């Protein structure tokens, strides 16, 4: 304590410290459930992303995926990958609007099977408008027999505001079903999402055209993470294992290297120990 404050006396400072402590305590209590959920997290499979997400994505919460209009294919693949990670053997409800079939194509069942998901577990809801889609998604989230609910909304919509996303979050928390929102051609607005991703398609690894290209690759940017830092990674989807992974042979990382470089520090420490 600085000398010019000493005349306030010890009791006043103690009172302030205790207020501060109690406030800290209440903040800790508010944040406690999320910490308690940590063990339940579902790993994506990509080591860098999982480390940043402290183990993976929380299943009982809202996650948003944004993509520009012409990146609909990649974003669909990414969110289907998330849904596949969340609920490998549970039914998946996909809520979409009528016109999204024309805008960005219908979901192809053979494509889904090739991707490593099970078409038998997919129930598609074709809603006439956004309000219906939101309501249906909230209803579906209340059904704990599901693994995940994907809500696909095209463009900027007024209805999907903070209140709507709060409703989805609460429904997801109550039932433990993952709420995944796919926003194509939309600009991010405030929401209660646990994570928010911006997804683009990524190049296949260099090499001859015939050799090992075509595996789904995403340039996934984590732009919001309620409980940690954000980052950007190239992810490859392993259709056989139903898992994200590091790109198999990418020449240089697109993501910025973390400033403290933990892996290099570890390597140096090992080197020192060895010597």
């Amino acid at each position, binding site marked *: 304590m600085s000398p010019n404050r000493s005349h306030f006396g010890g009791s006043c400072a103690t009172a302030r410290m205790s207020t501060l402590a109690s406030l800290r305590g209440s903040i800790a209590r508010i944040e406690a459930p999320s910490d308690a959920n940590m063990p339940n997290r579902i790993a994506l499979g990509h080591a860098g992303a999982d480390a940043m997400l402290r183990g993976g994505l929380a299943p009982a919460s809202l996650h948003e995926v944004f993509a520009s209009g012409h990146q609909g294919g990649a974003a669909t693949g990414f969110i289907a990958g998330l849904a596949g990670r969340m609920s490998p053997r549970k039914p998946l409800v996909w809520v979409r609007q009528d016109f999204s079939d024309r805008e960005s194509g219908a979901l*192809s069942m*053979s494509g889904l099977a090739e991707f490593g998901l099970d078409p038998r577990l997919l129930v598609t*809801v074709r809603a006439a408008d956004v309000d219906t889609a939101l309501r249906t998604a909230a209803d579906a989230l209340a059904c704990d027999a599901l693994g995940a609910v994907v809500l696909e909304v095209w463009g900027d919509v007024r209805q999907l505001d903070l209140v709507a996303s709060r409703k989805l979050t609460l429904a997801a928390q109550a039932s433990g079903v993952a709420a995944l929102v796919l926003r194509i051609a939309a600009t991010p607005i405030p929401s209660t999402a646990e994570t928010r991703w911006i997804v683009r398609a990524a*190049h296949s690894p260099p090499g001859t055209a015939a050799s090992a290209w075509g595996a789904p690759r995403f340039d996934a940017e984590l732009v919001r993470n309620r409980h940690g830092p954000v980052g950007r990674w190239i992810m490859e989807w392993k259709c*056989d294992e139903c898992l994200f992974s590091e790109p198999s042979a990418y020449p240089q990382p697109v993501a910025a290297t973390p400033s403290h470089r933990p892996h290099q520090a570890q390597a140096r420490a090992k080197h020192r120990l060895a010597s």
Partner: protein
Amino acid sequence: MSTLAGLSPPLWGRVGERGTTDAGVCGLPLSLTLPRKGGGNPAADASLTNGNDIPSVVVAKDHNAILLHAIDEAAVHAGLSIGLPLANARAICPELTVYDADPAADLKTLNDIADWCDRFTPLVALDPPYGLFLDITGCAHLFGGERALLQIVTNALSRRGFAVGAAISGTSIAARTLTRHASGKITADGEEAQAVGPLPVSALGADPAITTGLRRAGLKTIGDVAARAPHEISARFGSAFTTLLTCALGQGDAPISPRKPLPDYIVEKRFPEPIVTDTVIALTLQSLAKMLVVAMDKQGKGARQLEASFFRTDGAVRSIMVEIGRPVTRPEMIDRLFRERLEALADPLDPGFGFDLIRLAAGRTEIVVQQQRDLDASVHDNDELSALIDRIAARIGGKRVVVHLPLQSHIPERSALAVPAQHHLAAAIAAAWPERVAGEPPLRPFRLFERPEPIKVPFATVPDGPPHQFTWRRARHEVVRVEGPERIAMEWWQQDGKRLTRDYFRVEDTEGQRFWIFRDGLYESELRDEDGNPVPANWYVHGLFA
């Protein structure tokens, strides 16, 4: 001239179990006649019942002649008759109010009346243009007997300005015949011949040519015709007329075709004081659901289709249908489905001056197999999933909730069939999809356009090779990687050989987006004009890979 509604009903119970069906066949049909004054045209009706002295007529155009189609009492007194040309009618009676006939409105009015008649029996058949048959077998006692029922129906329709003729008889044709000239008559079984005998032949409602023929032959009444040997009548007027006559005499029966199939179970509640508020309506539905479930439970049935009908005091009827994926046996579930449905109605339920009858009917039922729940969680999950699908379908419609079934076709857009999830959930869960080849990247796109979108391809290095760049949705894509072609021939046995073979390529552009594009037609063999010269191929993008 008049019309009638006759009813010959089978069975009907207030708690909706089906009675024994024997009664229905030769039960007591009730016939109503709505005489053809005004012809149901609302505008005409209004003025026709005003009772002013100026004759009113409804005219219709028939073979370029404008003929009287329907007339009111004043016009009858003025000496007009149906079928008279309008010009002649004007000559007889210069101050004439003329309305145009509107057959569509007439039919709608008749349908509305039939809706209203649903409150007396579930079996109501139309007898166009102006008649209705009600099959009241087993229903009459609910309204205090046949006489009372006849009174209720006639009075209610008369109050609304319809001229009604009604009769109850053992067969529908006999009842219809009676309504034309002996309205209000009730004949016991076996007495039809006596009842219709004295009526003029026109009451049979046969073709006008036959009626005129009979009159010319000196056969004025139905009794006269019946006294002749049937083969004489058949030889002169055709066997159809003989059949009609037999039915009218009660010796044969013509089945009626009810507008709606008879539901398996019906429960209903009538209110002396019409109910208006949502709360009471909801409570009524709840208690009806309980009654229905109790009735179904006795026979181990569950409902697959439910219909709630709301009968307004002013005669309007609103029916709301709910389909269910698996037989429902719990009243709470029924209640919940209807709540969802009612909330989502585009035009909400309008009680007007109140509902005096609410009915809940199980249109389709199935036997419910009571099985013991095992500890396998997935069985339970499927129950929950189908309950969820039912709820969503009740709100937004069953066709909007779909699952997919595999089809035996290698044409991409035909390899899967979207079917309503309510009815095909079990089939979809058991469906066998082609296995993916392990280790291969996806060979089929994640998103498939129902209609392939045309792209502009400036050139290809080799005529049947892949393009180097293409323009899709006004954006240009440079192709950096290509895999293909994968040749998919059309199903010649289904397409008459009209559609062209497609060469599919998986391509990746500079941004890393992957497309599934195809060239429609083989370069040398299929793409030729009438003179045999090669024509450039059309290119399409069919899907997007993840």
